[in-house]
């Protein structure tokens, strides 16, 4: 809990300094008061934990996002082609895929990665499976190869 509060504090300080652009003593001290207030409220709301401050992922996440970016571009191209070719080119499919993730954070990263890539939307997430609606059954097949899932599983190792 301590370390997460600290990292939230750092995050908030960076957020304030980047947004503010005014570094007079007055504004800076108002900023300090604001950050203290926000941390207090966040603690009361119990939103400061390893789910909101996933420090353990910090090292491995950038590489994952680069890979996701590549996927994102490819699937965008795919969906855009289908849009212009018309409704005949799509074959909507739904499937429930088993997942093997140890914590909710990873499940959420997986679910959101699927939704973020056009052509697939996560409709349901549970402990051991994820339901996906896809624009074409080939996207489901791609998910079934488990590449994305494996990459996410490797994140917190």
């Amino acid at each position, binding site marked *: 809990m301590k370390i997460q509060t600290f990292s*939230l504090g750092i*995050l*908030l300080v960076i*957020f*304030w300094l980047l*947004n*503010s*652009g*005014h570094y007079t003593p007055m*504004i800076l001290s*108002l*900023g300090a008061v*604001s*950050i203290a*207030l*926000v*941390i207090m*409220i*966040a603690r*009361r*709301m119990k*939103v*400061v*934990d390893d*789910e*909101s401050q996933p420090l353990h992922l910090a090292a491995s996440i950038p590489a994952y996002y680069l890979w996701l970016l590549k996927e994102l571009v490819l699937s965008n191209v795919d969906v855009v082609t289908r849009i212009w070719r018309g409704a005949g080119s799509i074959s909507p499919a739904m499937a429930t895929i088993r997942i093997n993730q140890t914590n*909710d*954070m990873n*499940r*959420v990263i997986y*679910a*959101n990665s699927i939704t973020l890539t056009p052509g697939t939307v*996560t409709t349901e*997430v*549970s402990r051991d499976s994820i339901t996906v609606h896809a624009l074409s059954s080939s996207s489901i097949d791609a998910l079934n190869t488990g590449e994305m899932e494996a990459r996410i599983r490797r994140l917190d190792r």
Partner: protein
Amino acid sequence: MNMETVINMVLLSLLVVTAIAIVRIKDLFAAAMLAGIYGLLSASFFVMMDAVDVAFTEASVGAGISTLLMLTTLAMTGRFEKISGNYRPRLALVLVALTGALLIYGTLDMPAFGTAAAPVHEHVAPRYLNDSYAEIGIPNAVTSVLASYRGFDTFGEVVVIFTAGIGVLALLMRAEKPTPRTQTPTASMHEHMVLRIVAKMLIPLILLFGLYVQFHGEYGPGGGFQAGVIFASAFFLYSMLFGLSEARKVVNHVVVQILAALGVLLYGSVGIVSLMNGKNFLDYSALSADAVHGQHLGILAIELGVGITVTTVMIIIFFAFSGRNQIEGEKD
């Protein structure tokens, strides 16, 4: 024709089309959705007109909060208009037509839109624009006008908001009893895994963004009104995802009500302090030996008052509405 004119024309035509659609549509949920679009459109239009502060308010209130409040209302009242077959409001139609005609008649001798010779551009506006920086010392002239030159009007606005809060409390809190009930939102929180984690990440940042807007109103668009709404919206998000009773634990409603009054009080007492120092009500130059510094302090204080009142009244209204919904839901 340059791009700005084109954008203006498109935005205005979309506004008209949307307005007509809102009037024609029978499904009130759909109308609320379209009203959200209307808010987005008018805010874009304000941006085009360079009225950045207004656009800011419209973005947070018109496009955001008011849609939410309309939906909460619909959850209480039901989704479709109830019109009996022989409902013909002729008198109302005549009255509306008459008022409209009068208003149009009233605008006939007004100067044409955007004329430089219009009285408003010859007297007050140039005075504000030319002198406000020397007198108040802050770059955003809108804030100077709003908080200092016309501080009295703004005081009135804050009191109006406060009154609205009291009104909602008086109407809706009546049925409020701290009955322990099965909390649907909390119960389903595990299903809402994605929402839960994303909201947890965002809420502190939304809160801080609200405070940033609060304290930077002197330099850019923003100020107490917008900040209050943004700050409160973090609480809305929290209560929508974690349940109303959890949210009430975070902010006790007695404290919220007291704070709402304190915001107004803070604003008013700044005025009293300037009276005591021998200046006019809300003339902040009385607050410090250096007049410009006094203006700074005064604006900061009253904006804080505005921010506190707006935040708390928004929270009061939202909680009252959704609390009422839960009770109604239980009766069924």
